[in-house]
């Protein structure tokens, strides 16, 4: 396992106080949200510590000067210190105003050793801070800058905090240095240096973790570091492992981390901006060629791509396209044309979304790449069946570009007791269009079931050919002219005789029911309690009518 990089940390204690330019020998407290966040040494002697309420702090030290925290000013005042350090080495990384770190390897060799480097940094930073405080006190007070050098930023920061004014932990001795430290340093926000624990949520979690560790009897970092990594991972997860690595004097993140995926996106600026689709398509074609070349040289091919276009007025449109097999340059160019054709003509999503300016920029960003496997075509061109499939997939993609993704739908199996639920329509962009299966058995099998489970209460075949998207309210009357009702036990008050649809009445020739359904009674919004009937009327139509909370409605028609 690699050892953490030798790091130098410069730490200016009580930086919020120093940044305000207050003399350190006066009792000063900096408060934020009514809590003390920093105090001068003089104030600390009176018992003013971090986290006190303003009133309590003032009670403990009567002559305390209270100042509001000014984060901008802290960062601004730290700039000159960084400027001074830039002369020593480039690449100084600011952890927070008041704390910065850099890798010592280069500068230490140049300046003749780590001790010399620490001296130099102390002198340079001290000079600047003395200048800051010059108006307040006659000489630069000792201990305004501290420097620590150790393996890794965490150990270096702890070294800086325990330094007076500089402390160098020998290479490879960080674990011994860290071992006696109290476990609580892991959770303290101002100490965490890595991205994992220093973020807002990380600090809260970190303190939670240290509390647990302390309660488990692990008082020091050494005790924690002695645990097995596998045990820590099993008990505390990734966060625990990060903390464990810190405690062992390693970098917070394992060096075998995942490499970020390379950015393969290509962009092209169109100047002058194009307001006609053919010009954009021309640019897109060369852009697609460029992307294709690039991907091919990497040995990958793209199966999903995001196409983004931006106008001169800053309007942008992004759409993600998926394609079975590799997206060739021509295919990508087609998709750019379809997408922008719909956008420029205002057909996708209504006229109000039409861009007001010409298109100035086109970006192609591959979102999913696979290893290029090549493609073997049939001898007689491409196979006849797959060619029709491809043609249909192409027209689906094209219509999506023109009309919007929600306009082109394909059925998927949903399951349920109602005809509307059994097969649902979803945008074709959401599914793999070719080579899928819609039957209940295949859908359930792909979901992990080993057989087809029935839907008790669903009506058997034949299914109605017309399912109304919104049920049509009707009246169902018996021979006396009063509405037919169904009791809670599922008993019909009297046989239905007349069905009144939109004022027209048809005589009921045959009927069956009720078939009650009481679904999801625990859910107010989706609950459904109804009694269903099949009605055959004298106009030859068979209908499925449902009674729900006293209201009859036609749900489906066997047309």
């Amino acid at each position, binding site marked *: 396992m690699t050892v953490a990089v030798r790091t130098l940390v410069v730490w200016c204690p009580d930086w919020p106080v120093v940044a305000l330019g207050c003399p350190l020998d006066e009792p000063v407290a900096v408060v934020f949200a009514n809590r003390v966040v920093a105090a001068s040494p003089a104030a600390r002697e009176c018992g003013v510590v971090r986290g006190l309420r303003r009133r309590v702090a003032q009670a403990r030290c009567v002559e305390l000067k209270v100042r509001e925290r000014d984060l901008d000013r802290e960062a601004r005042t730290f700039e000159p210190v960084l400027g001074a350090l830039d002369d020593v080495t480039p690449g100084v990384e600011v952890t927070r105003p008041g704390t910065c770190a850099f890798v010592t390897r280069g500068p230490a060799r140049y300046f003749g050793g780590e001790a010399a480097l620490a001296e130099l940094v102390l002198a340079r930073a001290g000079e600047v801070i003395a200048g800051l405080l010059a108006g307040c006190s006659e000489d630069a007070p000792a201990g305004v800058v501290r420097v620590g050098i150790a393996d890794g930023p965490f150990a270096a920061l702890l070294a800086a905090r325990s330094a007076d004014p500089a402390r160098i932990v020998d290479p490879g001795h960080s674990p011994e240095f860290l071992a006696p430290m109290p476990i609580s340093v892991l959770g303290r926000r101002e100490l965490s240096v890595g991205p994992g624990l220093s973020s807002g949520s990380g600090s809260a979690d970190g303190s939670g973790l240290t509390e647990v560790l302390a309660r488990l009897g692990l008082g020091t970092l050494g005790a924690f570091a002695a645990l097995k990594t596998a045990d820590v991972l099993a008990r505390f997860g990734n966060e625990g492992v990060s903390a464990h690595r810190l405690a062992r004097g390693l970098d917070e993140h394992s060096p075998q981390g995942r490499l970020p995926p390379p950015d393969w996106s290509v962009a092209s600026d169109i100047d002058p901006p194009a307001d006609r689709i053919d010009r954009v398509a021309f640019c897109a074609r060369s852009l697609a060629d460029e992307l294709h070349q690039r991907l091919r040289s990497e040995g990958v091919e793209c199966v999903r791509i995001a196409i983004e276009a931006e106008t001169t007025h800053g309007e942008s449109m992004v759409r993600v396209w998926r394609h079975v097999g590799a997206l060739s340059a021509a295919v990508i160019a087609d998709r750019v044309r379809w997408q922008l054709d719909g956008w420029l003509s205002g*057909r996708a999503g*209504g006229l109000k979304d039409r861009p007001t300016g010409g298109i100035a920029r086109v970006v192609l960003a591959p979102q999913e790449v696979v290893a290029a496997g090549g493609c073997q075509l049939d001898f*007689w061109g491409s196979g006849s069946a797959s060619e*029709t499939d491809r*043609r*249909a997939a*192409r*027209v*689906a993609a*094209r*219509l999506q570009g*023109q*009309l919007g993704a929600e*306009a082109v*739908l394909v*059925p998927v199996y949903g399951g349920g007791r109602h005809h509307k639920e*059994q*097969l649902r*329509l979803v945008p*074709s962009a959401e599914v793999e269009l070719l080579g899928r*299966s*819609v*039957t209940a058995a295949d859908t359930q099998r792909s979901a992990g079931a080993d057989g087809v489970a*029935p839907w*008790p*209460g669903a009506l*058997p*075949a*034949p*299914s*109605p*050919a*017309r399912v*109304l*998207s919104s049920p049509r309210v009707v009246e169902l009357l018996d021979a006396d002219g009063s509405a037919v*009702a*169904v*009791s*809670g*036990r*599922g*008993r019909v008050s009297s*046989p239905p005789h007349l069905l009144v649809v939109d004022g027209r009445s048809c005589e009921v020739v*045959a*009927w*069956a029911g*009720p*078939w*009650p359904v009481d679904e999801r009674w625990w859910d107010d919004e989706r609950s459904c309690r*109804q*009694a269903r009937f*099949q009605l*055959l009327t004298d106009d*030859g*139509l*068979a209908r499925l009518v449902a*009674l729900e909370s*006293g209201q009859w409605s036609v749900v489906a028609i*066997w*047309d």
Partner: protein
Amino acid sequence: MFDTELMAATATAESQIDRRARLQLVADRVAPLALAHQRTLPLLPAVSELFVGGSLQRGTTVAVNGVGATSLSLVLAAGPSQAGSWTALVGDEGLGLAAAAEAGIALERLLVVSPVDPSTNVGVVAALIGAVDVVMVGPGLRFRPADLRRLSARLRESGSVLIQIGSSQISSSRGPGVDVGVRVVASQWSGLGSGHGLLRSRRVEVCTQGRGAAARPRAVSFLLPGPDGAPMRLDSPTHSDVPVDCDVPVDCDVPVDCDVPVSCDVPVSCDVLVSCDVLVSCDVPVDCDVPVDCDAPAV
């Protein structure tokens, strides 16, 4: 032991047939042109007698009307769909997808396009015509004659079939720009009693009339849908070559015999069909006299 001679002879004969079939396949592929009657789409057996040659002529427009027009359109589209063609449906969100699946349409090869803006309908249909074999348009969608002419030209060029799902109200069997008009002239449901039973099947009388070879009216009776949802031929198809007057509804009082046995031997003491995976069609309504504690409010 083995009749090797015979086996060899059979194998040779088989391989010759096989070779001949493959040669025929290659010959078809390299044939310079396809005759019009060869450019067809297959139909389901139940409806094949409705059309000249037993199949749908590519590049034609079919209008389906009458009670049951939707089911009939689905059945017409099911033949090509089962043979591997794609089907598209424009402007008809109310179509029952379960019924489409039962009629035999392969749902994995079905596209449903519902444009928000109705003015784009013609463009959508035109785009689909080149790419899918069967395009169905919903009853709410009608084209102007000029658009229809343009679509017809595109249909002839690309070889797709356009099916207009009509409504039950339209009485004319064939409008302008339509090659074949299909109309359900009579329908009779069976299986539903008064207070009992379940819709089982519908016997329909369908007649077609069109242009050219289809000018002579044809009429066929079959079950649409049959007991399993799919169309079913009657045992003796009443295929008549004599012209039938399509405007007179055919009186169909012959009891339809569905040869699926109705399995109701035990009196079922329940007049509600709840969570019952066996469909019991009970001819006698039986009262449920068992007192049950039930405080449920009325539905």
